Each structure stands twice: as C-alpha cells, then as structure tokens.
C-alpha cells in the first residue's frame, strides 16, 4: 500500500512534466491544424523551456524568484498530495497557496502589466473557486470520503453517474484553469495582446521556464481530477477515465480555437452562474436523495 503511494508520487514528479509538456506540444499542433497551419514540432514546449533555461539570468527584484520557486514547489506538492491519495480539500488548498505565490510574484515586480495580469488572475481564481469547492463537496457526498484513495474505491462506482452537473461545471472552469480562450485573461499563449504578457511580463529566462514547468504539472493534476469522476478502481474504468481526460482536453482546445477572448465580467458571471445552476442543482439532488429519501 505504502509502496504504491511512493511509486505513484515519484512517477508523478518524474512523468508529469514530460506528459504535460507533450500534451502542450500536441495542443499547439492540434491548434495549428485547426487553423490550417503546419504548426511546430510536438517537442516545441521542451525546446522553449530549454531555451529559456539558457538565457541570461535577469530579474526585476530579489524577491520574485523566491515566489516563483515557491509556486513551482507547491504545485508539485499539490500534485504529490493528489497522487498520494490524500484529502481532496488539502489538495485544493495547497493549489490555492501555490496560485497565490504566482500572483504575489507578479505583484512584487510592481510593474503595471504584471499587476493587471495578477489582478485578472485573481479574478479568475475568484471565478472558479466556488465550482472547485463544490466539486470536492459533491465527490465527498457521493463517495463518503474526501480521501482520493477512497474516492476511486470500486465500491463507489463511477462518481459521474451522480454528478453529471458538477462534472460539466468543472469542465467549464477548466477553461480558465488551462488558460484557454475565451478566459485567458491574465496571460495568453498567443501573440500580441494588450497586457504584453500579463502575469508573466516580468519573468525572464529561467524564471519563465519554471512557470512553464509548473503549468505542465498543474495541467496533469487538473486532468487527474477529471479522472476521479470516471475511475471506479477497475482497469477498464481507468482506461475510460484516461480517454475522458483526453477528450476533455481536446474539447478545451476546440473551445480555445473557436472563441475570442471575452471580458472579465463574462468570465466571472458565467462561471458563477454555472456554479449556482449546475453545481447547486446537482448538490440539491444529492442531498435530497441522501437525506430525505
């Protein structure tokens, strides 16, 4: 038991950046094809990362690197907790801590572009946070535990059967978390924009490389939550869950390429409305069937 935990955590730490980087590469390739372009090599994200590592070491102040380092560290810890099968709320709170470090790093530069990016990132956090907490609450109510190792217990069956609304709501806010259009407000993977590079404007060279790696870790962990909805402890369940993860990611790419960026008001309105409707109604049904019937 303990051995499997250690193995899965080590596997996460080693494999997540590789898989995450590849996913990012595939993402760029698919996006290019959707736009009728050839697109870069699938390994392009790795080239980018290694190049950033080779660049001159510059920073705007002595504190920023520390915050970015903490961001990466706590993102890895978040995923580590997740793949160790610990408490889902603990995982969510650690993720929040990590995200706050990223925002703080941008704020610390006192640069207007970085600060506006940071404020928007914060706004996005406020937009998705309720849905994330509702997701955790929903999984708990269905499976009776916050522990990830218990959630995928075969006895519980597929969580998605009871949580279709919450699943859809979570996929909706994943658009924000994956930094996809129409909600890539704080920083965008695409070219010119009014914020220069938003949150990451003042991160150069190695610092930027750390951010890229952190995002790969983060994306894998987020897909891990999608995995939880489907997995039921059996092999075919795991296969189905991986397929659903990939399909979800593809849908996010499709959304990314079919929408222009929207205003921040729409980001917060829509995600809160989704949380209130899909999340709330689904919760209501669960409560009703659990406590009233």
């Amino acid at each position, binding site marked *: 038991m303990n051995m499997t935990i250690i193995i899965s955590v080590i596997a996460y730490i080693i494999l997540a950046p590789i898989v995450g980087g590849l996913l990012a590469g595939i993402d760029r390739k698919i996006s290019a094809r959707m736009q009728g372009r050839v697109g870069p090599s699938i390994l392009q994200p790795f080239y980018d990362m290694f190049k950033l590592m080779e660049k001159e070491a510059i920073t705007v102040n002595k504190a920023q690197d*520390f915050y970015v380092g903490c961001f990466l560290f706590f993102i890895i810890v978040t995923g580590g907790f997740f793949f160790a099968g610990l408490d889902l709320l603990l995982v969510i709170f650690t993720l*929040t801590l990590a995200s706050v470090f990223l925002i*703080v790093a941008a704020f610390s530069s006192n640069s207007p572009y970085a600060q506006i990016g940071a404020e928007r990132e914060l706004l996005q*956090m406020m937009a998705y946070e309720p849905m994330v907490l509702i997701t955790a609450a929903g999984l708990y109510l269905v499976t009776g535990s916050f522990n990830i190792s218990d959630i995928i217990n075969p006895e519980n069956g597929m969580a998605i059967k009871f949580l279709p609304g919450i699943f859809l709501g979570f996929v909706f806010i994943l658009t924000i978390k994956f930094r996809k259009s129409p909600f890539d407000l704080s920083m965008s993977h695409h070219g010119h924009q009014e914020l220069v590079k938003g949150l990451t404007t003042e991160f150069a060279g190695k610092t930027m490389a750390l951010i890229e790696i952190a995002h790969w870790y983060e994306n894998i962990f987020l897909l891990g939550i999608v995995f939880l909805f489907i997995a039921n402890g059996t092999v075919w369940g795991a296969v189905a869950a991986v397929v659903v993860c990939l399909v979800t990611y593809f849908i996010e790419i499709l959304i990314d390429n079919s929408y222009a960026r929207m205003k921040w008001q729409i980001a917060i309105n829509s995600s809160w409305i989704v949380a209130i409707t899909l999340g709330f109604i689904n919760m209501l049904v669960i409560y009703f069937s659990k406590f009233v019937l």
Partner: protein
Amino acid sequence: MSTITFLILFPLLSAIALLVLRTDAARGVIVKVSATLIAVASIYLAYQYFGIGEEYFDFANETVNLGMTVIEVLLAIMIIYLGIKYKKYLASVLAAIQTPTMIWFEVKVGHHIHVTNNLYVDRLSIIMVLIIGIIGSIITVYALGYMKDFQHHHKDQPDRRPFFFFIMYLFLGAMCGLVLSNNIVWLYFFWEITTLCSFFLIGYTKTEEAINNSFRALIMNLLGGVGFVIAIVIMGSSLGTLELNQLIMMGMFGVPAVTYVAALLAFAGITKAAQMPFNSWLLGAMVAPTPTSALLHSSTMVKAGVFLIIKLAPLLGWQSLAGIMVMMVGGITFIMASFAAVSQSNAKKVLAYSTVANLGLIVACGGIGTYAAVWAGILLIIFHAITKSLLFLCVGTAEHNIGSRDIEDMDGLFTRMPKLATYMIVGISAMFLAPLGMLVSKWAAMKAFIDNGGVLLVMFIAFGSAATLFYWTKWLGKMVAIMANRENIQSGVNKDENFVLSTLTILTVIVCLIFPLISKTMIVPYLIKAFPYVDPKHMILALSSTNMTIMVIMLFVLIVLPILFFGRTNKKIVPIYLAGANLGDDLTFRGAMEKEVPVSLKNWYMEGYFGEKKMNVIGVIATVVIITGVFAILLGGVL
C-alpha cells in the same frame, strides 16, 4: 478559585489606578505590569486546571448579588440620562425596559431560586481566558504608544487617556467574568458591562460621528440585552434554574421551554457578535482609535457573543428552530460580509467586514451544533483573535507612519517599512492561506457544513471563500510590491508597538504550529464533556491526524523556505517593463510631450458586483426575515 477572583478583580483595580494616576510614566508602568500579571494569571489558570479540566464553584454571596443589582441600576440610570442628553431616546427606552424587568424578576422569582454554582472553569473558558489575558492585555500595551501618538495627532482634543485605559481594563475584567460565570444573572451583569464599555470606547473622540456610532452600538447591544433578560425570566420562571450548565443539561433531555431560552440567548449572542442585521455597529466602531477596534473585534466584545453561542451549541442544530436561525444568520452574514469586503479600500473596513464574516462562520458552526462544527468554531475563535488583533494593530501603526489607512496608500510598504510589511504579510496569509490557522479552521467548518449544514450553507461557504481569497490576496499584493528608491521609515515606529507586533506575529505562527496539540489537550476534552451523547471513541474530527501533521509540516517548510532562499539571487537586477519608456527608477515613465508620468497602480474593487450597500441591504433583509420568522413560529407555539 483565587486565580479566578484575581482575573476578574485585578483588572478592575488596575483600571481604577489608571483613572487616578494620570501621568504618562505612571500609566506606562501600571499598564505594563498589569498586562504582564493578567497574562501570567491566565496562563497560571490554564496550568492549574489543565489536568482537572472542569470545576464548578459555589461562591454564593448575597452582597455580591446585591452589589451587582445596584451597579446595574446605576448603569441603567446613566444610559437613560445619556440617551436623553444626546437625544437618542431609543437607548433610554431600551434601558428603561431592560433593567426594571431584571429587578422585578430578581425580587419576584430570582430571589427564591437557589444557585449552587456561580462560577466555573472548563476548557472552553480557559481558552477564552487565555485569549483575553494574553491578546487583550497585549493590546493595552500597544495602546500606550498608540494613544500617545494619537493625542499628538489630535491636539485639538482633550487628553482623556486615563478614562480610555480605565475602560479598557474594566473591559478585560468584565470579559473574564463573562466567560467564567455559571450563574446566568452574573453572566448578564458582565454582558451589560461590556456593552457599556464598548459604548464609551467607540465614542472616545466625541465627534458627532463617534457619538452616533457609539449609540448605534449601544442600542443594538441593548436590544440583545432585552432578549437576554427575557431569556432569564423564562429560564427562572419555567425552568426554575439560573445555572448555565443546568440549562444545557435540560436542553439535552429535551425540556421544551429550553428552546425559547436558547433562541433568545442566541439572539443576544447574534447582536453582540455583530451578525447581520446588527453588523453596522461593528463597522461604525471603526471611528474609534485602532486599539479599541483591535480589542473589540479580536479578543473581547464580539468574542463574548460567539462564546455564548458556542456554549449553547449542544442545544442548537437542525432539530431546534434556534439552531436553524443561528446557522442561517451566520451563513448569510459570512457570505454577504465577505462580498462587501471586496469593495472596500479602507484597511480598517476590510478588517471589520472580514471580522463580521469570520464571526458569521463561527456562529454558523455553533448553529450546526455538532461536535465537529464546534471544534471548527473554537479553532476559529483562537486563530481569529490572534491574527485579527495583529492586523488591526499593524494598520494602526501604518496609519500613524504613512498618514493613511487606505490600502491604496500602502504602496511600497515593503520597501518603506519592511518589518511592518512582513508582520502584515504574515497576518494576511494567516487569514486565508493553507497551512496557516484560519484556513485550517475554515476547512473544518467546510467539512462540518457539508456533513450537517445542508446545501445552502455549502454554497455560502464556497462563494464566500472565493471572495475572501480575492480581497486578501489583492491586499497581500500591495504589501509585497517592491518599489526600489523609496525611503525606509521603519525606525519611526514606537518601540512598544514594535514589540507588541512582533510578539503577535510570533504567536500567530506558534499557535499554527501547535494547534494539533491545542486540539488534543483542550478542545477535544471539552467536546467530550459538552457532547456526552457522542462516544469519544467515535469522535471523528474534521481534520484527520494525518492532515494536521501535513499542515504542520507544510508550515514548517514555509518558515524554512524564506529563511533559506528569500532574496538570495545573484541574477542581474533590471528595470521593469514600461513599454520602453521607463525613466530608470521604475516609478515614472516618459509620457506624451516628454512629460514624466508617475506609475500609479490601483486595485480592483468591483463596486458594481460587491457594493457595500447592496450587500448590506440583501443581508439585512434576509436575516431579519429569518429572525422574525423563527420568533414568530416560537411565539405561535406559546400562544
């Protein structure tokens, strides 16, 4: 026993001494000595009863009862007089209803009821005494330096510091009495003293605004007091007891009249804890000097309200109407106050709304009334007291040194006052980030809500937490912003203030580190006593011991990381990007017509979404409907 007497009476002695000896030097000595003694006494009390855990004391004395009644009458006369003098007749009317009723009751009924135990100590009151004794008294030390500066800044006002410190110490004594009284009449006596003390502290500056706000606080708390008196009358006449522990016992056996008493006492608690619709008194209290806000909002006053509700928690819960009222009021207050805090740029107002919100969370925990919820509630009380007092005092110091309490003016505080900014960063982080205190308890609260709170409370906490995250992080962002080329003015901070701030900061971190220990030795034993129907072996806390250990380890990592790595970089420091027009100092850029334009960055306040007024109106209407609804149903049951 003698420690208890000391804790109640010694602050009173200090208070009188402070009123009589009016020189700065004498005041400094008295405050420092008294604060130390009170803190030591509270720790000694904890040590004394650590093993025993719980003890009740007879301490029956007719003269004490008589003395209390006389003081109550005098206070009522004073309120009536002040109400008429300042044309706030409602205060007079409430006082004129309250005290005669109380006296009528005393003479008619109360007199015949034998009270076995007037005082008691249990682990919850030990926790409260520690909070009052340590946090409360350290705030008075801070007030020494602060009030000196304050008088310096407000030369036009008469120096009423002796009175100020008199009230502060009186307050501490009354609070100790409040958390140690088992006799509900005594509890009520101390309750009214805290109401009156807060009235004087809020009205300290005697400006028109201060007077209005102090009367608002007085009226709202007197309203709660009326509820309290009715509760005592019902309790005495239909239950035949005046003892708190008896009341709770009867409640557990399902004596019907207890519901009414619990609802009325909970209502009194709601007014004191500044829950909606009564939150406006706490916001109005911001006109007072900062130590007052710190004292009222972190360790005393409002904590009296939540203390009573947590104490009554075993009687609340879904099975009782009072419980539903309390949890809904708490939940609505939490979400609405959290939203309102987003729209504020005045640091003290942000803190005030955050206080109201956190109290809402505690009240909701009390309302749910399961042991898991109460566990979260008590942890919230502890962490909130320390962290909030730290933040209030930080804002006070910032205000005196940069001349503003607006968050927008705290630009570059990290460069200008690095120490103060660090204290604030610790304080702010401790309010909402894992693995620090408030988050731990919020986590527990969330779990309790999901288990027993129903779907609505889950939604409240989900959305409220998101807003909490937003307003704290944007403030945190201001704090960490590094502006080169700003003058360092840290040395201007008063030595006493600096000592208090650093102590509180260290305390914040230490309590976060040892909270599993506090839980194990203090809170869980209390819960086992308070919830006798729950088998201790099956008492599953919201946070498993694994999670608690992980939290402590994470905190340890978070302490070590900055020590090892913060600021250690040998990278080349370059200017920030200002579209190629940075003039080199990172603070100005070359604008049109070669003009130098300063970089000015402002936070988001989202007035359209979270406007203070809108949130208050919604919250007040919702809570008024709930409270009147519950009381209407209860009244319908009587008639």
